[in-house]
């Protein structure tokens, strides 16, 4: 188990190229479950491969518990990794698959036997321990991969590279919950790469949101929801994402075109692109003409709540209303919960 420090870390695949990973400094705590979340091509897999040692960064260094491991290869970093697609040794039995990393490290036979049975028990593979891996379905194979990742007790970190891609949706939920429980039990540092926000938010203690080679925010799921550090985090997390509207700020008032909106705190004068962000959950429809006038385009009923697709002039605004909401003609205004508004200058959150 280890604390992972990324010191001035950056990477480009060839000299002169753009950075695939922009320079960053982060310390990741021992025993915490992190999720790397971002769209395809944002550099999350690059970062994971740098941590696992499959890729040597072009700049900066990676430290495990303060030791520089930048130049060390994967094997000597003592990490475990689970890949996107199941990697199993087809000709071996499930038992031999699980024992393989331990056997290669020449551990005691009795210990291996005990440990394999423990892991099989945790991952639900006990019944099929003596089956050949070849014949099993993708999700069982991925369970074997997970088991092989968990089997070593002394690993510095366990890395997951979108491990649930091939799993059926209902199994996904179950495996994710199991993983979370295993993390609680084992206390390993875990890093989990995904582009699925639900997966990240349910699995991780802390979510690392990445965009275009840059970490835009590291925070707990609640922090990401309530105080997105970047407009991208705002609309990437949440369904629908945060409403982002261009505004002008004067003290504790914001102006969308000419409509005044009260803010919870006052702001200094700012330059650049200024926007207000508010989650659809924190807007309510009203019949009060002092609120922001909007036109409602359609209402989507998604079961336990309703999504109201509206617009102020040509700026789209999404509003979430509860199931019991009834539409009426006089609801032509939107009221913002002022304690839940955030202000962004050039896409980054501004503290009052």
């Amino acid at each position: 188990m280890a604390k992972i420090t990324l010191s001035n870390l950056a990477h480009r695949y060839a000299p002169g190229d753009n950075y695939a990973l922009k320079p960053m400094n982060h310390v990741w705590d021992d025993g915490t479950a992190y999720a790397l979340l971002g769209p395809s091509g944002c550099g999350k897999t690059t970062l994971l491969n740098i941590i696992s040692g499959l890729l040597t960064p072009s700049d900066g260094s990676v430290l495990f518990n303060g030791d520089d491991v930048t130049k060390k290869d994967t094997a000597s970093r003592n990490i475990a990794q689970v890949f996107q697609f199941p990697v199993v040794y087809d000709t071996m039995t499930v038992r031999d698959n699980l024992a393989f990393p331990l056997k290669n490290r020449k551990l005691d036979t009795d210990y291996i036997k005990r440990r394999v049975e423990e892991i099989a028990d945790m991952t639900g593979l006990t019944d099929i321990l003596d089956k050949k891996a070849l014949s099993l379905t993708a999700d069982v194979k991925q369970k074997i991969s997970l088991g092989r990742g968990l089997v070593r007790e002394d690993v510095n970190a366990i890395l997951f590279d979108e491990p649930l891609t091939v799993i059926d949706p209902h199994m996904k939920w179950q495996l994710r919950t199991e993983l979370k429980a295993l993390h609680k039990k084992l206390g390993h540092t875990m890093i989990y790469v995904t582009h699925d926000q639900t997966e990240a938010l349910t699995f991780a203690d802390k979510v690392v949101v990445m965009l275009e080679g840059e970490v835009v925010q590291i925070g707990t799921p609640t922090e990401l929801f309530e105080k997105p550090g970047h407009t991208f985090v705002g609309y990437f997390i949440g369904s629908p994402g945060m409403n982002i509207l261009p505004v002008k700020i004067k003290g504790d008032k914001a102006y969308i075109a000419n409509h005044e909106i009260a803010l919870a705190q006052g702001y200094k004068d700012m330059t650049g692109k200024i926007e207000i962000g508010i989650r659809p959950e924190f807007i309510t429809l009203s019949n009060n003409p002092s609120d922001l006038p909007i036109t409602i385009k359609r209402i989507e009923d998604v079961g336990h709540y309703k999504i109201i697709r509206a617009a102020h002039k040509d700026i789209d605004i999404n509003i979430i209303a509860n199931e019991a909401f009834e539409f009426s003609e006089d609801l032509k205004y939107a009221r913002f919960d002022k304690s839940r508004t955030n202000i962004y200058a050039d896409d980054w959150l501004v503290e009052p």
Partner: protein
Amino acid sequence: MNKTHNQKAWFMVLPVVLLVAFSAVIPLMTVVNYSVQDTFGNNEFFWVGLEWFEEILASNRMHDALGRQVIFTTTILLIEIPLGIFVALHMPKKSGFWSSICLVLVALPLLIPWNVVGTIWQIFGRIDIGLLGYTLDQMGIDYNYTQDSFAAWVTIIIMDVWHWTSLVVLLSYAGLKSIPDAYYQAAKIDQASRLSVFRYIELPKMKGVLLIAILLRFMDSFMIYTEPFVVTGGGPGSATTFLSIDLVKMAIGQFDLGPAAAFSLIYFLVILLISWVFYTVMVHSDKEAGL
């Protein structure tokens, strides 16, 4: 609703039936026809039943040729399959300039017509003008494939290895290329040795293509004719007379059409049988692993 029973759909397979009849069944039947008759010329035939088959099955000549054939095929399989895998393992894995160069170089022997391959080695091995034969002779090594049966065997085996290992290389290479990187990365993380990587990742993933490689090389080498015929003509004596060379000698050299036809059929059935056994064993072992 009443189902209409209509057998007219059988006409749909008629073209294939005709095609197979003309391309395979009818020519084969002419051989069957010869194998059960004898002739004294003038296009007069008379029925002899299974006499030719009995004669061929009991003949030492056939047994010797079959023995030589089995030794030859076993030898080249034992050399070409491991060598092909070895070469494929050492070719550049990433697609690029060097892997293309390697592929072209490896594929070259496969593009040469068989009789040309024979001619190349026939000249190459001659002690008067051939580079190989002359060099060996000058080094004081006794090498003369026209007189020494051991030298003749070595020449033919090396020639076959030179000509056909490429096929095994290409197939193995294709098998290796299809292994995702994650497997190698996982093996690194699991601290697997090079041997384990080969044993547990590369070999199982190559199994399918290797099965095809072995089958192809078995069938082709069991039917080999042109190359040894050009190099040694089946000699010295009958040291390198394999089944097909013997068959041609019998059919065209001696014009013993009846025995030759019986020989052909037995030959055909032997290849069919071995291929079938081989295939069944491999498929069965797959199924067993799948249980």
